[in-house]
């Protein structure tokens, strides 16, 4: 549950956003809000527009029409300030292969102008159990370890709004469990979480709200518990019990 007094305040507001790639509309008049303390699961089939939407919220893509507001400010015009509060993990790891794990975190930490950087790096490395690999070149790491480093990069600046696109990619069972636990605790800290995963049950076990996308349109936006699964074409594998 969101901390008292913060529930109603949207940290993010998407207003009638449409995104074209050439003639193809990846998103069609998408509107939604996300408040602090909310954990939102973005679900949809391939090509639904999930990645496009998440990239837009991380300020990596611009809407063709409509606007995205972060803390009331237009992300396109006042994006620099908003970026300090957003942590993003994508399919791409955003890490330099020729730098070590610690060097990568130090570089991105400096771009974020973080105080007490080495302490923060230590904390991020511990959070994703990468301390023993801190001096390894990223190019020499397995995909799973690279993903953990990418997660450490995204959490390094303690973001208020965490945007994760398929964050469990390449992770082993133990790392998946640790990340799930971390994501479940974010709302308690007053942070907003928006993430996508193709494993519906995994997402449902973390989030308290579902946004279902199909063909670039929002088909459902509401509590997970009351989602019309059959109408959305979602087959539950463990009955109807969802995280509340």
């Amino acid at each position, binding site marked *: 549950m969101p901390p008292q007094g913060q529930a109603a305040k949207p940290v993010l507001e998407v207003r009638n956003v449409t995104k074209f790639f050439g003639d193809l509309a990846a998103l069609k008049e998408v509107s939604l809000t996300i408040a602090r303390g909310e954990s939102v699961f973005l679900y949809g089939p391939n090509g639904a527009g999930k990645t496009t939407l998440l990239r837009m919220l991380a300020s990596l893509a*611009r809407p063709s029409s409509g606007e995205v507001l972060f803390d009331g400010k237009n992300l396109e015009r006042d994006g620099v*300030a908003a*970026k300090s509060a957003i942590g993003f993990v994508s399919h791409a790891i*955003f890490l*330099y292969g*020729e*730098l070590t794990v610690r060097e990568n975190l130090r*570089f991105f930490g400096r*771009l974020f102008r973080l105080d007490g950087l080495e302490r923060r790096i230590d904390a991020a490395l511990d959070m994703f159990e990468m301390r023993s690999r801190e001096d390894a070149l990223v190019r020499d790491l397995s995909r799973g370890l690279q993903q953990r480093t990418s997660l450490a990069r995204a959490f390094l600046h303690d973001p208020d709004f965490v945007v994760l696109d398929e964050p469990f990619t390449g992770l082993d069972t133990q790392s998946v469990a640790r990340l799930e636990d971390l994501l479940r605790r974010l709302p308690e800290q007053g942070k907003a979480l928006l993430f996508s995963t193709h494993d519906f049950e995994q997402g449902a076990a973390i989030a308290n709200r579902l946004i279902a996308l199909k063909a670039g349109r929002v088909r459902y936006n509401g509590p997970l518990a009351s989602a019309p699964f059959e109408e959305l074409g979602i087959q539950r594998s463990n009955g109807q019990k969802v995280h509340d």
Partner: protein
Amino acid sequence: MTSLKIIWSILIKDLRVEWRNRETLASMCVFGLLIVFLFNFSFETAREETLRLLPAVLWVAIAFAGVLGFNRSFASERENSCIEGMTLAPVDPSMIFVGKMLANLLFLGIAEVVMAFAATLWFNFSFLPSLGELVLIAFFGTLGYAALGTIFGAIAANTRMREVMLTVLQFPIAFWILMLSIDATSNAMRGDPGGNWAGGAARVAGISVVFTVASFLLFEYVLEE
């Protein structure tokens, strides 16, 4: 001060990446030396012939070695979408431009020293009598060329035929810097008692500053999808 720290971080990062893979500088130097050597092999090295040809030989070598460097500069950014990782940070895109441009300027500057040293040996020509003038011309010519290479390298990095695209996009504009640099270098190498080299150097500096400022201002639009 904060901006300087950001620029410094990007520059140091590029130097560290280069130190680890040793791809950019080595390929620039080898390619530049090859061009200087081939021209030396093809022409007489009599003094008048050298004075006529060497400025163009050197700037052609610098131009082609630069293209290699600019392509490599953004290859490491393209890998793992690192350039997007940088744009996720609350950093003015122009700071990214300055950091990348300084790294390109440094690599090209080192390659130029190597090429000039080789030209001294192979063309049996001493740059020492007009060293100050030549360094000034080389600095401004390289600055403008590196600025164009940085912005066009970033544009080409997002295209399919990126190696070809960089050359096609950059050379029609870089032509003006190269032409003025060749002219100024030629005058400086001849000793130029009339002081024409200074006017030439001023023209190189002027056009380079214009291209550098324009690239600085336009870089944020290049980083957009």
